[in-house]
Protein backbone atom coordinates (compact mmCIF):
# COMPACT_ATOMS: atom_id res chain seq x y z
CA UNK A 1 0.00 0.00 0.00
CA UNK A 2 1.23 3.48 -0.83
CA UNK A 3 1.63 6.27 1.68
CA UNK A 4 -1.61 7.92 0.67
CA UNK A 5 -3.56 4.65 0.71
CA UNK A 6 -2.37 4.16 4.26
CA UNK A 7 -3.31 7.71 5.15
CA UNK A 8 -6.75 7.28 3.59
CA UNK A 9 -7.25 4.14 5.66
CA UNK A 10 -6.09 6.12 8.72
CA UNK A 11 -8.62 8.87 8.02
CA UNK A 12 -11.37 6.26 7.69
CA UNK A 13 -10.53 5.20 11.26
CA UNK A 14 -9.95 8.67 12.68
CA UNK A 15 -13.15 10.09 11.18
CA UNK A 16 -15.48 7.63 12.92
CA UNK A 17 -17.81 9.56 15.26
CA UNK A 18 -16.31 7.93 18.37
CA UNK A 19 -12.70 8.74 17.40
CA UNK A 20 -13.64 12.29 16.42
CA UNK A 21 -15.21 12.70 19.85
CA UNK A 22 -12.09 11.34 21.57
CA UNK A 23 -9.82 13.58 19.48
CA UNK A 24 -11.96 16.55 20.49
CA UNK A 25 -12.01 15.46 24.16
CA UNK A 26 -8.21 15.06 24.10
CA UNK A 27 -7.66 18.43 22.45
CA UNK A 28 -10.04 20.12 24.90
CA UNK A 29 -8.62 18.46 28.00
CA UNK A 30 -5.07 19.03 26.74
CA UNK A 31 -5.68 22.72 26.26
CA UNK A 32 -7.19 22.91 29.75
CA UNK A 33 -4.31 20.90 31.24
CA UNK A 34 -1.77 23.13 29.50
CA UNK A 35 -3.58 26.25 30.63
CA UNK A 36 -3.67 25.28 34.29
CA UNK A 37 -0.37 26.18 35.94
CA UNK A 38 1.31 23.28 37.66
CA UNK A 39 -0.11 20.55 35.43
CA UNK A 40 2.08 19.97 32.41
CA UNK A 41 1.51 17.65 29.49
CA UNK A 42 3.14 14.70 31.31
CA UNK A 43 1.05 15.13 34.45
CA UNK A 44 -2.03 15.58 32.27
CA UNK A 45 -1.44 12.43 30.24
CA UNK A 46 -0.56 10.42 33.38
CA UNK A 47 -3.57 11.72 35.34
CA UNK A 48 -6.07 11.26 32.52
CA UNK A 49 -4.75 7.87 31.39
CA UNK A 50 -7.21 5.97 33.64
CA UNK A 51 -10.09 7.61 31.73
CA UNK A 52 -9.06 5.59 28.66
CA UNK A 53 -9.28 2.16 30.30
CA UNK A 54 -12.61 1.25 28.73
CA UNK A 55 -11.60 2.33 25.22
CA UNK A 56 -9.96 0.45 22.37
CA UNK A 57 -6.21 1.29 22.05
CA UNK A 58 -6.63 3.45 18.92
CA UNK A 59 -9.31 5.67 20.47
CA UNK A 60 -7.36 5.84 23.71
CA UNK A 61 -4.07 6.91 22.11
CA UNK A 62 -5.92 9.41 19.88
CA UNK A 63 -7.26 11.02 23.05
CA UNK A 64 -3.92 10.90 24.88
CA UNK A 65 -2.00 12.38 21.94
CA UNK A 66 -4.70 15.07 21.76
CA UNK A 67 -3.95 15.86 25.39
CA UNK A 68 -0.23 15.94 24.59
CA UNK A 69 -0.28 18.40 21.71
CA UNK A 70 -3.32 20.24 23.12
CA UNK A 71 -1.29 21.06 26.23
CA UNK A 72 1.29 22.77 24.01
CA UNK A 73 -1.45 25.09 22.78
CA UNK A 74 -2.93 25.56 26.24
CA UNK A 75 0.37 26.37 27.92
CA UNK A 76 0.56 29.54 25.87
CA UNK A 77 -2.59 31.02 27.43
CA UNK A 78 -1.12 31.31 30.93
CA UNK A 79 2.30 32.31 29.62
CA UNK A 80 0.81 35.25 27.76
CA UNK A 81 -1.96 36.30 30.14
CA UNK A 82 -0.49 35.86 33.60
CA UNK A 83 3.23 35.39 32.97
CA UNK A 84 3.00 31.86 34.43
CA UNK A 85 3.83 29.05 32.00
CA UNK A 86 1.29 26.25 32.25
CA UNK A 87 3.80 23.93 30.58
CA UNK A 88 7.63 23.91 30.57
CA UNK A 89 7.70 24.13 26.78
CA UNK A 90 5.98 27.52 26.95
CA UNK A 91 8.33 29.09 29.51
CA UNK A 92 10.16 31.07 26.84
CA UNK A 93 6.84 32.39 25.48
CA UNK A 94 6.40 34.42 28.67
CA UNK A 95 9.34 36.68 27.69
CA UNK A 96 7.61 38.41 24.81
CA UNK A 97 4.07 37.07 25.20
CA UNK A 98 3.50 38.70 28.57
CA UNK A 99 5.05 41.93 27.36
CA UNK A 100 2.58 41.91 24.46
CA UNK A 101 -0.26 41.35 26.95
CA UNK A 102 0.93 44.33 29.01
CA UNK A 103 0.81 46.42 25.84
CA UNK A 104 -2.82 45.35 25.28
CA UNK A 105 -1.86 42.85 22.53
CA UNK A 106 -2.63 39.61 24.39
CA UNK A 107 -5.13 38.57 21.71
CA UNK A 108 -2.56 39.09 18.96
CA UNK A 109 0.00 37.02 20.88
CA UNK A 110 -2.49 34.20 21.38
CA UNK A 111 -3.65 34.40 17.77
CA UNK A 112 -0.12 34.26 16.35
CA UNK A 113 0.72 31.41 18.73
CA UNK A 114 -2.37 29.50 17.60
CA UNK A 115 -1.61 30.08 13.91
CA UNK A 116 2.04 29.13 14.34
CA UNK A 117 1.11 26.08 16.37
CA UNK A 118 -1.33 24.96 13.68
CA UNK A 119 1.24 25.31 10.88
CA UNK A 120 3.91 23.59 12.97
CA UNK A 121 1.64 20.80 14.20
CA UNK A 122 0.41 20.07 10.67
CA UNK A 123 3.92 20.16 9.20
CA UNK A 124 5.19 17.99 12.07
CA UNK A 125 2.49 15.41 11.42
CA UNK A 126 3.26 15.46 7.67
CA UNK A 127 6.96 14.97 8.34
CA UNK A 128 6.18 12.21 10.86
CA UNK A 129 4.08 10.52 8.18
CA UNK A 130 6.95 10.66 5.66
CA UNK A 131 9.81 9.72 7.99
CA UNK A 132 8.26 7.17 10.33
CA UNK A 133 7.48 4.24 7.98
CA UNK A 134 10.91 4.48 6.29
CA UNK A 135 12.74 4.59 9.60
CA UNK A 136 10.61 1.74 10.92
CA UNK A 137 11.48 -0.41 7.87
CA UNK A 138 15.18 0.27 8.43
CA UNK A 139 14.85 -0.63 12.10
CA UNK A 140 13.32 -4.01 11.23
CA UNK A 141 16.87 -5.26 10.71
CA UNK A 142 17.51 -4.77 14.43
CA UNK A 143 18.20 -7.79 16.61
CA UNK A 144 18.58 -7.97 20.43
CA UNK A 145 22.09 -6.38 20.43
CA UNK A 146 20.87 -3.39 18.41
CA UNK A 147 17.81 -3.05 20.63
CA UNK A 148 19.95 -3.08 23.73
CA UNK A 149 22.28 -0.48 22.22
CA UNK A 150 19.27 1.60 21.20
CA UNK A 151 17.81 1.63 24.73
CA UNK A 152 21.23 2.56 26.10
CA UNK A 153 21.39 5.42 23.59
CA UNK A 154 17.90 6.59 24.59
CA UNK A 155 18.82 6.65 28.26
CA UNK A 156 22.19 8.27 27.57
CA UNK A 157 20.60 11.05 25.51
CA UNK A 158 18.04 11.69 28.20
CA UNK A 159 20.61 11.82 30.99
CA UNK A 160 23.16 13.74 28.92
CA UNK A 161 20.77 16.41 27.75
CA UNK A 162 19.08 16.95 31.09
CA UNK A 163 19.14 20.51 32.40
CA UNK A 164 20.48 19.54 35.84
CA UNK A 165 23.45 17.41 36.89
CA UNK A 166 24.12 14.59 34.36
CA UNK A 167 25.43 12.40 37.21
CA UNK A 168 22.20 12.78 39.15
CA UNK A 169 20.17 12.10 36.00
CA UNK A 170 22.29 8.96 35.49
CA UNK A 171 21.58 7.85 39.07
CA UNK A 172 17.87 8.51 38.48
CA UNK A 173 18.01 6.26 35.43
CA UNK A 174 19.73 3.51 37.46
CA UNK A 175 17.01 3.78 40.11
CA UNK A 176 14.35 3.48 37.40
CA UNK A 177 16.10 0.39 36.01
CA UNK A 178 16.29 -1.16 39.50
CA UNK A 179 12.56 -0.56 40.09
CA UNK A 180 11.89 -2.14 36.69
CA UNK A 181 13.61 -5.38 37.80
CA UNK A 182 11.15 -5.94 40.68
CA UNK A 183 8.78 -8.87 40.14
CA UNK A 184 8.96 -12.28 38.51
CA UNK A 185 11.87 -12.60 36.09
CA UNK A 186 10.32 -13.06 32.64
CA UNK A 187 13.01 -15.51 31.47
CA UNK A 188 13.15 -17.81 34.50
CA UNK A 189 9.99 -17.00 36.51
CA UNK A 190 12.15 -16.42 39.59
CA UNK A 191 10.93 -13.67 41.99
CA UNK A 192 13.25 -10.66 42.39
CA UNK A 193 13.01 -8.15 45.25
CA UNK A 194 9.44 -9.25 46.06
CA UNK A 195 10.13 -10.03 49.76
CA UNK A 196 7.22 -12.48 49.80
CA UNK A 197 4.67 -9.81 48.86
CA UNK A 198 2.31 -11.16 46.22
CA UNK A 199 1.45 -7.63 45.07
CA UNK A 200 5.06 -7.27 43.93
CA UNK A 201 5.08 -10.43 41.78
CA UNK A 202 3.84 -8.51 38.76
CA UNK A 203 6.32 -5.71 39.48
CA UNK A 204 5.54 -2.03 39.85
CA UNK A 205 2.89 -0.75 37.50
CA UNK A 206 4.22 2.28 35.66
CA UNK A 207 0.93 4.25 35.90
CA UNK A 208 0.81 4.85 39.69
CA UNK A 209 4.50 5.78 39.58
CA UNK A 210 4.07 8.22 36.70
CA UNK A 211 1.03 9.76 38.42
CA UNK A 212 3.15 10.01 41.58
CA UNK A 213 6.22 11.59 40.01
CA UNK A 214 4.41 14.11 37.85
CA UNK A 215 0.88 14.80 39.17
CA UNK A 216 1.15 14.04 42.91
CA UNK A 217 4.65 15.51 43.35
CA UNK A 218 3.59 18.68 41.56
CA UNK A 219 0.75 19.21 44.04
CA UNK A 220 2.85 18.23 47.07
CA UNK A 221 5.47 20.86 46.31
CA UNK A 222 2.82 23.40 45.34
CA UNK A 223 4.45 24.00 41.97
CA UNK A 224 1.40 25.61 40.46
CA UNK A 225 -0.88 28.28 41.65
CA UNK A 226 -1.14 31.94 41.21
CA UNK A 227 -3.58 34.40 42.63
CA UNK A 228 -3.25 36.76 39.69
CA UNK A 229 -6.41 37.15 37.69
CA UNK A 230 -6.30 36.75 33.97
CA UNK A 231 -7.37 39.53 31.67
CA UNK A 232 -10.77 39.36 29.98
CA UNK A 233 -10.60 38.42 26.31
CA UNK A 234 -13.23 38.06 23.63
CA UNK A 235 -13.07 35.98 20.43
CA UNK A 236 -12.59 39.14 18.36
CA UNK A 237 -9.30 39.85 20.14
CA UNK A 238 -7.66 36.64 18.88
CA UNK A 239 -7.28 37.69 15.23
CA UNK A 240 -3.90 39.28 14.43
CA UNK A 241 -3.61 41.85 11.65
CA UNK A 242 -1.96 41.14 8.25
CA UNK A 243 1.04 43.13 9.44
CA UNK A 244 1.43 40.85 12.46
CA UNK A 245 1.23 37.75 10.26
CA UNK A 246 3.81 39.15 7.84
CA UNK A 247 6.11 39.93 10.73
CA UNK A 248 5.73 36.43 12.20
CA UNK A 249 5.72 34.27 9.05
CA UNK A 250 9.44 33.42 8.83
CA UNK A 251 9.67 32.95 12.58
CA UNK A 252 6.90 30.35 12.25
CA UNK A 253 8.74 28.57 9.41
CA UNK A 254 12.09 28.55 11.24
CA UNK A 255 10.50 27.56 14.55
CA UNK A 256 8.70 24.67 12.84
CA UNK A 257 11.87 23.29 11.25
CA UNK A 258 14.00 23.70 14.39
CA UNK A 259 11.22 22.22 16.54
CA UNK A 260 10.71 19.13 14.41
CA UNK A 261 14.42 18.37 14.13
CA UNK A 262 15.01 18.77 17.87
CA UNK A 263 11.82 16.89 18.70
CA UNK A 264 13.05 13.80 16.86
CA UNK A 265 16.14 13.60 19.11
CA UNK A 266 15.41 11.41 22.12
CA UNK A 267 15.93 13.44 25.27
CA UNK A 268 15.75 16.87 23.67
CA UNK A 269 12.02 17.58 23.77
CA UNK A 270 9.72 20.52 23.21
CA UNK A 271 11.21 22.74 25.92
CA UNK A 272 14.70 22.70 24.40
CA UNK A 273 13.16 23.20 20.95
CA UNK A 274 11.29 26.31 22.07
CA UNK A 275 14.43 27.83 23.65
CA UNK A 276 16.54 27.04 20.57
CA UNK A 277 13.97 28.56 18.23
CA UNK A 278 13.74 31.71 20.37
CA UNK A 279 17.54 32.01 20.56
CA UNK A 280 17.89 31.52 16.79
CA UNK A 281 15.21 34.11 16.07
CA UNK A 282 16.84 36.64 18.34
CA UNK A 283 20.27 36.00 16.86
CA UNK A 284 19.20 36.61 13.26
CA UNK A 285 16.85 39.51 14.02
CA UNK A 286 17.69 42.93 12.53
CA UNK A 287 16.62 44.56 15.78
CA UNK A 288 17.39 42.04 18.52
CA UNK A 289 16.67 44.69 21.15
CA UNK A 290 12.93 44.29 20.38
CA UNK A 291 13.07 40.82 21.92
CA UNK A 292 11.93 40.83 25.53
CA UNK A 293 9.81 43.90 24.85
CA UNK A 294 6.89 42.26 23.07
CA UNK A 295 8.28 41.06 19.72
CA UNK A 296 5.69 38.98 17.90
CA UNK A 297 8.45 36.73 16.50
CA UNK A 298 9.41 35.96 20.11
CA UNK A 299 6.01 34.28 20.51
CA UNK A 300 5.68 32.79 17.01
CA UNK A 301 9.04 30.97 16.95
CA UNK A 302 8.91 29.09 20.28
CA UNK A 303 5.21 28.29 19.94
CA UNK A 304 5.75 26.80 16.47
CA UNK A 305 8.82 24.95 17.72
CA UNK A 306 7.13 23.28 20.70
CA UNK A 307 4.23 22.02 18.57
CA UNK A 308 6.50 20.71 15.82
CA UNK A 309 8.64 19.07 18.51
CA UNK A 310 5.59 17.33 19.98
CA UNK A 311 4.98 15.68 16.59
CA UNK A 312 8.71 15.05 16.11
CA UNK A 313 8.94 13.30 19.49
CA UNK A 314 6.55 10.65 18.19
CA UNK A 315 9.06 9.65 15.46
CA UNK A 316 11.52 7.77 17.75
CA UNK A 317 8.61 6.43 19.82
CA UNK A 318 6.63 4.95 16.94
CA UNK A 319 9.59 3.80 14.84
CA UNK A 320 12.21 2.71 17.36
CA UNK A 321 10.19 2.34 20.55
CA UNK A 322 12.32 5.06 22.16
CA UNK A 323 10.45 7.66 24.18
CA UNK A 324 11.90 11.05 23.29
CA UNK A 325 10.85 12.66 26.56
CA UNK A 326 8.75 12.32 29.66
CA UNK A 327 5.33 12.57 28.05
CA UNK A 328 6.25 10.13 25.29
CA UNK A 329 7.63 7.79 28.01
CA UNK A 330 4.17 7.81 29.61
CA UNK A 331 2.62 7.26 26.16
CA UNK A 332 5.02 4.34 25.58
CA UNK A 333 3.93 2.80 28.88
CA UNK A 334 0.29 3.30 27.88
CA UNK A 335 0.87 1.52 24.55
CA UNK A 336 2.47 -1.40 26.38
CA UNK A 337 -0.51 -1.53 28.78
CA UNK A 338 -2.77 -2.11 25.78
CA UNK A 339 -0.50 -4.85 24.45
CA UNK A 340 1.00 -2.73 21.66
CA UNK A 341 4.75 -2.63 21.32
CA UNK A 342 6.02 0.72 20.09
CA UNK A 343 8.82 0.15 17.61
CA UNK A 344 9.54 -0.87 14.03
CA UNK A 345 6.90 -3.59 13.93
CA UNK A 346 4.11 -1.21 14.95
CA UNK A 347 3.50 -0.02 11.37
CA UNK A 348 3.49 -3.64 10.14
CA UNK A 349 1.52 -5.34 12.90
CA UNK A 350 -0.91 -2.54 13.77
CA UNK A 351 -1.25 -0.33 10.69
CA UNK A 352 -4.80 0.67 11.66
CA UNK A 353 -3.50 2.01 14.93
CA UNK A 354 -0.43 3.79 13.53
CA UNK A 355 -2.17 5.43 10.56
CA UNK A 356 -5.34 6.16 12.53
CA UNK A 357 -3.18 8.04 15.01
CA UNK A 358 -1.38 10.04 12.30
CA UNK A 359 -4.69 10.95 10.61
CA UNK A 360 -6.20 11.95 13.94
CA UNK A 361 -3.29 14.35 14.52
CA UNK A 362 -4.26 16.30 11.39
CA UNK A 363 -7.85 16.44 12.60
CA UNK A 364 -6.76 17.30 16.14
CA UNK A 365 -4.76 20.28 14.89
CA UNK A 366 -7.81 21.69 13.11
CA UNK A 367 -9.89 21.12 16.24
CA UNK A 368 -7.30 22.91 18.34
CA UNK A 369 -7.41 26.01 16.16
CA UNK A 370 -11.20 26.14 16.49
CA UNK A 371 -11.01 25.43 20.21
CA UNK A 372 -8.40 28.10 20.78
CA UNK A 373 -10.30 30.74 18.87
CA UNK A 374 -13.73 29.93 20.28
CA UNK A 375 -12.93 28.85 23.79
CA UNK A 376 -10.13 31.16 24.89
CA UNK A 377 -12.60 33.21 26.97
CA UNK A 378 -13.69 29.97 28.70
CA UNK A 379 -10.11 28.91 29.42
CA UNK A 380 -9.37 32.37 30.75
CA UNK A 381 -12.26 31.93 33.17
CA UNK A 382 -10.95 28.48 34.21
CA UNK A 383 -7.73 30.17 35.28
CA UNK A 384 -9.67 31.94 37.99
CA UNK A 385 -10.32 28.71 39.92
CA UNK A 386 -8.27 29.17 43.12
CA UNK A 387 -5.29 26.85 43.47
CA UNK A 388 -6.53 25.86 46.94
CA UNK A 389 -9.58 24.30 45.27
CA UNK A 390 -7.86 22.98 42.17
CA UNK A 391 -5.02 21.23 44.03
CA UNK A 392 -7.23 18.98 46.24
CA UNK A 393 -9.25 17.97 43.16
CA UNK A 394 -5.99 16.92 41.45
CA UNK A 395 -4.94 15.03 44.62
CA UNK A 396 -8.21 13.10 44.44
CA UNK A 397 -7.66 12.40 40.74
CA UNK A 398 -4.19 11.04 41.61
CA UNK A 399 -5.65 8.68 44.25
CA UNK A 400 -8.51 7.44 42.11
CA UNK A 401 -6.32 7.23 38.98
CA UNK A 402 -3.73 5.13 40.82
CA UNK A 403 -6.47 2.84 42.18
CA UNK A 404 -8.07 2.46 38.74
CA UNK A 405 -4.78 1.19 37.25
CA UNK A 406 -5.40 -2.30 38.67
CA UNK A 407 -8.41 -1.77 40.96
CA UNK A 408 -6.31 -2.23 44.11
CA UNK A 409 -5.39 0.02 47.02
CA UNK A 410 -1.79 -1.24 46.82
CA UNK A 411 -1.21 1.06 43.86
CA UNK A 412 -2.49 4.04 45.87
CA UNK A 413 0.16 3.23 48.49
CA UNK A 414 2.79 2.96 45.74
CA UNK A 415 1.64 6.33 44.38
CA UNK A 416 1.96 8.00 47.79
CA UNK A 417 5.42 6.53 48.47
CA UNK A 418 6.77 7.49 45.04
CA UNK A 419 5.14 10.92 45.37
CA UNK A 420 7.19 11.58 48.50
CA UNK A 421 10.26 10.15 46.73
CA UNK A 422 9.47 12.50 43.85
CA UNK A 423 9.50 15.51 46.19
CA UNK A 424 12.95 14.47 47.40
CA UNK A 425 14.15 13.93 43.84
CA UNK A 426 12.87 17.33 42.74
CA UNK A 427 14.42 19.14 45.70
CA UNK A 428 17.79 17.43 45.31
CA UNK A 429 17.95 17.81 41.54
CA UNK A 430 17.41 14.16 40.56
CA UNK A 431 15.56 13.65 37.27
CA UNK A 432 12.04 12.19 37.32
CA UNK A 433 12.14 12.10 33.51
CA UNK A 434 15.22 9.84 33.47
CA UNK A 435 13.65 7.65 36.19
CA UNK A 436 10.35 7.10 34.36
CA UNK A 437 12.06 6.53 30.99
CA UNK A 438 14.32 3.92 32.57
CA UNK A 439 11.30 2.30 34.20
CA UNK A 440 9.59 1.99 30.81
CA UNK A 441 12.71 0.95 28.87
CA UNK A 442 14.14 -1.26 31.65
CA UNK A 443 12.42 -4.56 30.82
CA UNK A 444 13.15 -4.09 27.09
CA UNK A 445 16.81 -3.30 27.79
CA UNK A 446 17.28 -6.21 30.18
CA UNK A 447 15.66 -8.75 27.89
CA UNK A 448 17.65 -7.50 24.91
CA UNK A 449 20.91 -7.64 26.91
CA UNK A 450 20.29 -11.15 28.17
CA UNK A 451 19.14 -12.43 24.77
CA UNK A 452 22.22 -10.87 23.13
CA UNK A 453 24.55 -12.56 25.59
CA UNK A 454 22.64 -15.81 25.20
CA UNK A 455 23.05 -15.67 21.39
CA UNK A 456 26.77 -14.89 21.79
CA UNK A 457 27.21 -17.59 24.46
CA UNK A 458 28.15 -15.01 27.04
CA UNK A 459 30.58 -12.99 24.95
CA UNK A 460 30.10 -9.20 25.27
CA UNK A 461 31.93 -8.84 21.92
CA UNK A 462 28.52 -9.24 20.27
CA UNK A 463 28.01 -5.51 20.83
CA UNK A 464 31.30 -4.64 19.14
CA UNK A 465 31.15 -6.95 16.15
CA UNK A 466 27.74 -5.72 14.94
CA UNK A 467 28.24 -2.32 13.30
CA UNK A 468 24.80 -0.81 14.10
CA UNK A 469 25.02 -1.84 17.76
CA UNK A 470 28.59 -0.53 17.98
CA UNK A 471 27.59 2.77 16.35
CA UNK A 472 24.66 3.21 18.71
CA UNK A 473 26.81 2.45 21.77
CA UNK A 474 29.49 4.90 20.61
CA UNK A 475 26.78 7.53 20.14
CA UNK A 476 25.57 6.76 23.68
CA UNK A 477 29.08 7.18 25.08
CA UNK A 478 29.36 10.49 23.22
CA UNK A 479 26.00 11.65 24.57
CA UNK A 480 27.14 10.89 28.12
CA UNK A 481 30.59 12.45 27.72
CA UNK A 482 29.56 15.55 25.76
CA UNK A 483 28.00 17.49 28.66
CA UNK A 484 31.12 16.92 30.79
CA UNK A 485 33.44 18.28 28.06
CA UNK A 486 31.07 21.14 27.29
CA UNK A 487 31.01 22.17 30.95
CA UNK A 488 34.79 21.97 31.17
CA UNK A 489 35.28 24.05 28.06
CA UNK A 490 32.72 26.61 29.31
CA UNK A 491 34.42 26.73 32.71
CA UNK A 492 37.79 27.14 30.96
CA UNK A 493 36.51 30.01 28.86
CA UNK A 494 35.02 31.71 31.90
CA UNK A 495 38.27 31.42 33.88
CA UNK A 496 40.28 32.78 30.90
CA UNK A 497 37.93 35.75 30.69
CA UNK A 498 38.17 36.50 34.40
CA UNK A 499 41.97 36.27 34.57
Amino acid at each position, binding site marked *: MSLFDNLAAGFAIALTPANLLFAFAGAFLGTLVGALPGIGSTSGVALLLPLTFGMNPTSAIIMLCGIYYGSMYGGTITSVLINTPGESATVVTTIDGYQMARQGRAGVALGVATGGSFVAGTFGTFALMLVAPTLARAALAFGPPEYFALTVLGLALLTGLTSGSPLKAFISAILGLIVATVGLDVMTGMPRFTFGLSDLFSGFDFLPISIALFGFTE*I*LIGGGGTEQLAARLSIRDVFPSTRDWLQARWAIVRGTLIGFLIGTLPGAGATLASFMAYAAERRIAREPERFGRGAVEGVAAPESANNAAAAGALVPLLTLGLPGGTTTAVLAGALMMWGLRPGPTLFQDNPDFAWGLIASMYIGNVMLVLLNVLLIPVFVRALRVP*YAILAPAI*LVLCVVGAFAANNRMWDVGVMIVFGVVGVGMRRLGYSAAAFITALVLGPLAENALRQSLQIAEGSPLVFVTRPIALGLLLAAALALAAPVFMRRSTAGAVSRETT
Partner: protein
Amino acid sequence: MTTDRRAALVLAAFGIFITAQAWRLPYWLDRSPGPGFVPLWLGILLTICAGWVFVRAKATAPREAEDQPTGRSDPYALAIMTTLAAAVVPLVGLVAATGALTAAAAWRLDPRRPLAIVAATLATPLLVWLVFVRWLGVPLP
Protein backbone atom coordinates in the same frame (compact mmCIF):
# COMPACT_ATOMS: atom_id res chain seq x y z
CA MET B 1 26.50 17.33 56.51
CA THR B 2 24.70 18.74 53.46
CA THR B 3 21.41 17.35 52.20
CA ASP B 4 23.18 16.29 49.02
CA ARG B 5 25.67 14.19 50.97
CA ARG B 6 22.98 12.65 53.19
CA ALA B 7 21.01 11.68 50.07
CA ALA B 8 24.18 10.23 48.53
CA LEU B 9 24.70 8.09 51.64
CA VAL B 10 21.11 6.81 51.49
CA LEU B 11 21.56 6.00 47.78
CA ALA B 12 24.87 4.24 48.44
CA ALA B 13 23.23 2.18 51.20
CA PHE B 14 20.40 1.32 48.82
CA GLY B 15 22.95 0.34 46.17
CA ILE B 16 24.71 -1.97 48.64
CA PHE B 17 21.35 -3.47 49.65
CA ILE B 18 20.44 -4.15 45.99
CA THR B 19 23.89 -5.67 45.37
CA ALA B 20 23.53 -7.94 48.40
CA GLN B 21 20.03 -9.05 47.41
CA ALA B 22 21.07 -9.63 43.78
CA TRP B 23 24.05 -11.67 45.00
CA ARG B 24 21.59 -14.30 46.25
CA LEU B 25 20.03 -14.66 42.79
CA PRO B 26 21.65 -16.84 40.09
CA TYR B 27 24.15 -14.70 38.15
CA TRP B 28 24.55 -17.11 35.23
CA LEU B 29 22.17 -19.86 34.05
CA ASP B 30 22.59 -22.23 31.09
CA ARG B 31 25.35 -20.18 29.41
CA SER B 32 23.28 -17.01 29.60
CA PRO B 33 22.79 -14.28 32.21
CA GLY B 34 20.50 -15.22 35.08
CA PRO B 35 17.98 -13.10 37.00
CA GLY B 36 20.72 -11.70 39.25
CA PHE B 37 22.93 -10.44 36.42
CA VAL B 38 21.36 -7.03 35.71
CA PRO B 39 20.36 -6.14 39.32
CA LEU B 40 23.88 -6.95 40.56
CA TRP B 41 25.51 -4.56 38.10
CA LEU B 42 22.87 -1.91 38.72
CA GLY B 43 23.47 -2.15 42.47
CA ILE B 44 27.24 -1.82 42.02
CA LEU B 45 26.82 1.08 39.59
CA LEU B 46 24.43 2.87 41.95
CA THR B 47 26.84 2.49 44.86
CA ILE B 48 29.75 3.86 42.82
CA CYS B 49 27.74 6.81 41.46
CA ALA B 50 26.31 7.66 44.89
CA GLY B 51 29.87 7.57 46.26
CA TRP B 52 30.90 9.94 43.50
CA VAL B 53 28.10 12.36 44.40
CA PHE B 54 29.19 12.13 48.07
CA VAL B 55 32.80 12.98 47.23
CA ARG B 56 31.88 15.78 44.80
CA ALA B 57 29.45 17.31 47.28
CA LYS B 58 32.33 17.57 49.74
CA ALA B 59 34.74 19.03 47.20
CA THR B 60 32.37 21.65 45.86
CA ALA B 61 30.27 24.24 47.65
CA PRO B 62 27.31 22.76 49.51
CA ARG B 63 24.86 24.14 46.99
CA GLU B 64 21.39 22.62 46.80
CA ALA B 65 19.60 21.86 43.55
CA GLU B 66 18.90 24.83 41.35
CA ASP B 67 15.28 23.99 40.79
CA GLN B 68 14.38 24.25 44.45
CA PRO B 69 10.62 24.62 44.40
CA THR B 70 9.17 27.77 45.83
CA GLY B 71 5.64 26.47 46.37
CA ARG B 72 3.57 27.31 49.37
CA SER B 73 2.03 23.93 50.24
CA ASP B 74 3.50 21.65 52.88
CA PRO B 75 4.34 18.44 51.00
CA TYR B 76 4.40 16.25 54.07
CA ALA B 77 1.04 17.50 55.39
CA LEU B 78 -0.61 16.78 52.04
CA ALA B 79 1.12 13.37 51.80
CA ILE B 80 -0.06 12.48 55.34
CA MET B 81 -3.62 13.58 54.49
CA THR B 82 -3.57 11.40 51.37
CA THR B 83 -2.22 8.46 53.40
CA LEU B 84 -4.97 8.90 56.02
CA ALA B 85 -7.61 9.12 53.28
CA ALA B 86 -6.27 5.87 51.79
CA ALA B 87 -6.27 4.28 55.27
CA VAL B 88 -9.97 5.04 55.87
CA VAL B 89 -11.08 3.70 52.47
CA PRO B 90 -11.90 0.20 53.88
CA LEU B 91 -14.15 1.88 56.49
CA VAL B 92 -15.98 4.55 54.51
CA GLY B 93 -15.30 3.76 50.85
CA LEU B 94 -13.17 5.59 48.31
CA VAL B 95 -15.79 8.16 47.25
CA ALA B 96 -16.37 9.37 50.82
CA ALA B 97 -12.63 9.33 51.49
CA THR B 98 -12.03 11.57 48.47
CA GLY B 99 -14.55 14.04 49.92
CA ALA B 100 -12.71 14.08 53.22
CA LEU B 101 -9.37 14.49 51.42
CA THR B 102 -10.70 17.39 49.35
CA ALA B 103 -12.02 19.16 52.45
CA ALA B 104 -8.85 18.66 54.49
CA ALA B 105 -6.45 19.63 51.69
CA ALA B 106 -8.48 22.68 50.62
CA TRP B 107 -8.73 23.87 54.21
CA ARG B 108 -5.00 23.33 54.70
CA LEU B 109 -4.12 25.30 51.55
CA ASP B 110 -6.48 28.22 52.13
CA PRO B 111 -8.94 28.23 55.05
CA ARG B 112 -10.33 31.65 54.04
CA ARG B 113 -12.75 30.20 51.49
CA PRO B 114 -15.26 28.11 53.51
CA LEU B 115 -17.99 28.18 50.86
CA ALA B 116 -15.64 27.14 48.07
CA ILE B 117 -14.27 24.36 50.30
CA VAL B 118 -17.80 23.03 50.98
CA ALA B 119 -18.65 23.20 47.27
CA ALA B 120 -15.44 21.39 46.29
CA THR B 121 -15.98 18.80 49.06
CA LEU B 122 -19.38 17.94 47.61
CA ALA B 123 -18.54 18.30 43.92
CA THR B 124 -15.28 16.32 43.80
CA PRO B 125 -16.61 12.98 45.14
CA LEU B 126 -19.72 13.42 42.99
CA LEU B 127 -17.55 13.84 39.89
CA VAL B 128 -15.40 10.85 40.91
CA TRP B 129 -18.53 8.74 41.26
CA LEU B 130 -20.00 9.95 37.95
CA VAL B 131 -16.81 9.51 35.91
CA PHE B 132 -15.22 6.44 37.45
CA VAL B 133 -18.18 4.43 38.76
CA ARG B 134 -21.03 5.37 36.39
CA TRP B 135 -19.08 6.08 33.19
CA LEU B 136 -15.97 3.90 33.35
CA GLY B 137 -17.42 1.16 35.58
CA VAL B 138 -14.39 1.08 37.88
CA PRO B 139 -15.37 -0.93 40.99
CA LEU B 140 -14.34 1.62 43.61
CA PRO B 141 -14.19 0.17 47.14
